[in-house]
């Protein structure tokens, strides 16, 4: 029983990281039809921004404060880099879908290489508050607190995103833009500003994942973002391209499937099963589901 509980929480924690990455991918895809390969780089950049902030504040004795400062630094870095990416690289290639994918591919390669050059390829440790390295006993299983943290944060992000989409003017613009961008601009709305905003939100969520990933895994390294990105793509595809709630559900399913199979069957079989699940979904429902974004 304890093992099942541990695996469940760990799987959901992994799913939470997937969701934080996938939600941004989904929003960006939904509104702009851009497949953002640089999303993993946002994750990586944010985790190193958090590490750098933590190092810079080494004089502060309070670990929670340092970690929070790192969190803010990571989220801000993710949002800024993402917004910059949209303005500088994506916008000049408006209406060139392949070109837009290609620049994000180039950016992903260059950014990860640059981080590797600047910080080395060895894993680094984020300074974590004591609470995060501790465990809590739930139903007889001792669960690392970080797992619970990522799940709670991901649920909060899901809630905030849905509130944003349902109850703000920009949320309204995003939902309408997913259906018909041209008509939104024909109503006198600057859709491009919404593009930048959506990139920034996606970057912030990926940044959050980057910082929380450092806590979840205990270390950060330059390539984890790319590895997670591939599974986030799978999550987005299974959940239905452009649907936030769909991504959340798919993220949980994928995370659980991976953890349980990797534990009870052979290592790696969980990852494999996830790809098979995607294949199955495609056979039943080719092209994914367009549907509504929420």
């Amino acid at each position, binding site marked *: 029983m304890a093992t099942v509980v541990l695996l469940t929480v760990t799987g959901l924690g992994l799913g939470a990281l997937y969701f934080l990455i996938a939600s941004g991918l989904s929003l960006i895809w939904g509104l702009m039809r851009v497949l953002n*390969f640089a999303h993993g780089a946002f994750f990586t950049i944010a985790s190193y921004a958090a590490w750098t902030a933590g190092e810079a504040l080494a004089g502060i004795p309070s670990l929670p404060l340092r970690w929070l400062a790192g969190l803010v630094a990571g989220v801000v870095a993710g949002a800024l880099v993402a917004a910059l990416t949209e303005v500088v690289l994506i916008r000049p*290639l408006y209406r060139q879908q392949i070109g837009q994918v290609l620049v994000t591919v180039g950016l992903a*390669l260059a950014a990860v290489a640059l981080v*590797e*050059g600047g910080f080395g390829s060895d894993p680094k440790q984020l300074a974590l508050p004591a609470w995060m390295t501790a465990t809590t006993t739930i139903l007889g299983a001792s669960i690392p607190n970080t797992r619970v943290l990522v799940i709670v944060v991901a649920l909060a992000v899901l809630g905030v995103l849905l509130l944003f989409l349902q109850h703000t003017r920009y949320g309204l613009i995003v939902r309408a833009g997913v259906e018909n961008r041209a008509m939104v601009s024909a109503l006198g709305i600057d859709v491009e500003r919404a593009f930048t905003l959506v990139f920034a939100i996606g970057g912030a969520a990926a940044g959050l994942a980057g910082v929380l990933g450092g806590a979840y895994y205990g270390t950060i390294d330059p390539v984890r973002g790319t590895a997670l990105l*591939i599974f986030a793509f*799978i999550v*987005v595809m299974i959940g239905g391209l452009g649907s936030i709630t769909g991504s959340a559900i798919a993220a949980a399913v994928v995370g659980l499937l991976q953890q349980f199979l990797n534990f009870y069957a052979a290592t790696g079989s969980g990852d494999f099963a996830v*790809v098979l699940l995607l294949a199955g979904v495609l056979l039943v429902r080719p092209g*994914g589901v367009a549907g509504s974004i929420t």
Partner: protein
Amino acid sequence: MNVRRSRAPRAVAVVGLAGVLVAMPWIHATIPGVFSSSLNSPGTLNLLALCFVFGGLALTYDLLFGFTGLLSFGHALYFATGVYTTAIALSRWHWTLWHALLLTAAVSVLLPLALGAICLRTRGIPFAMVTLAFAQAGSILVMQNPFGLTGGEEGLALGADALPAPLVGVVNTHNLYWVALAFLAFTYAVGWWVVHSPPGRVWQAIRENEGRVEVLGLNPYRYKLLAFVVSSLLASAAGVVYLLLQGGANPEVTTASFTLALLVMVVLGGVGTLWGAVLGGIIYQYLDFRLVALAGAPALQGLPSVLRLPLSEPLFILGALFVALVLFFPGGLGGVAKRA
């Protein structure tokens, strides 16, 4: 009217270049700054042979992306299929080279046929994501070292007795060089033939407008699957040559980064041109090699770290170059040449 005037010198140049390439192992000359040792040294021949493999591989990718308009992020899987199937048959099961090649050929047709049939149920960007997912599954499989077959992260070295003697050892590098050159020539010939064949014309029509192909009563799905299988099969052949050159398999060839590198090669050379893709592959491989050397160069050590750090990362330079190409020269080198 220019045809007669311009064709003849071009033919002479092509024949001349081919002659020089074939004769390379006998040319004891140095090109300072370009190659660090003489042309017929094993080091240079090996580098050139690798360049040829990647030139051919880039061409196979261009058949898919440039000619049929299918943006795959999983081409590495089929290259790796060639590498690993042959390597496993040779060094785990101790098959002869010919038997290993027969098996590899079979796998290299069946695997893309099965996976392509699924992936091609999607179009456009979703297709890219699905091919990426399958390639990732392949990568995971290789890394997990199932039944001790793939060697996991360590890779799989070919023993000295696994291959016929003329293909083994530094002294026989010139043979491997010829194999690679022959592979490139063969791939180019097949590529040229296939894009000028009736199915190849349908591929290009699909790239331009898939709907119109459907209206003509043709089934685009079948033609896309054919393009997928042909290009994957040729990529597997590139994998076999690569395995011979490297004397072993390493899991790096299964990764998504490897496919992305292919994409860079094709865009570098010019999407939708055969020679452009080949040139892109050659230049990429050459740059990758030389930029690694540059990273360790003493001249770089004197630079301030703002400059030194990026310059000592080959992937950063290639990635940045790629971004610049997409933004400013979407036609690649081929496009630049056409405009000039």
